[in-house]
């Protein structure tokens, strides 16, 4: 139970993930939020990779690069243009 359990790469990624999650919540403009959310998604992918979970990372990758943005962007497009 020493400090050394967490390798530096993991600590840095964790810090970035925490910061990005905060940013996603605090970004009130949804168009910008989906961009920040994309960055958050990529950071999670990196985190899962350094947590030795490539399967989950792959899942998160397809979801955060295609799933979320496509659905949300279209929803935004609709609500803005009508």
């Amino acid at each position: 139970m020493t400090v050394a359990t967490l390798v530096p790469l993991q600590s840095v990624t964790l810090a970035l993930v925490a910061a990005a999650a905060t940013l996603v919540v605090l970004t009130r403009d949804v168009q910008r939020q989906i961009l920040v959310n994309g960055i958050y998604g990529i950071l999670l992918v990196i985190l899962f990779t350094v947590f030795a979970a490539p399967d989950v990372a792959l899942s998160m990758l397809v979801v955060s690069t295609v799933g979320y943005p496509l659905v949300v962007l279209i929803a935004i497009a609709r609500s803005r243009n009508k």
Partner: protein
Amino acid sequence: MSVLPYLVAGWICVIGLYGIVTSRDLIHLALCLTVTQSSTYVLLLAVGYVQGGGPPIFKGVELGTTAVDPVVQSLTLTDIVVSVTVLALILALALDVHSEIETMDPDRIVELQG
């Protein structure tokens, strides 16, 4: 800080809840909900991590090599699917709201109260 990953997960959960409570836009709210959910991914994977362990895939590595827990990873996979479906359902409801009253403000869709 060997509890840092857990605390990060706790923080993500709390900040997501804050976003949900203060949200003025259903799309923003739905994304905050996915943020809250992402705390469970981080927590689950952190819980199953083994110091110095590799991925639980034994192709090209010897059986018995230290590897992290595969179970939390399979739970997280299910969890991710759930998050996509819930997001899609809430956005679909939100779009229906928008086509009714031209707004996505959750405070203004109150029809039933009291």
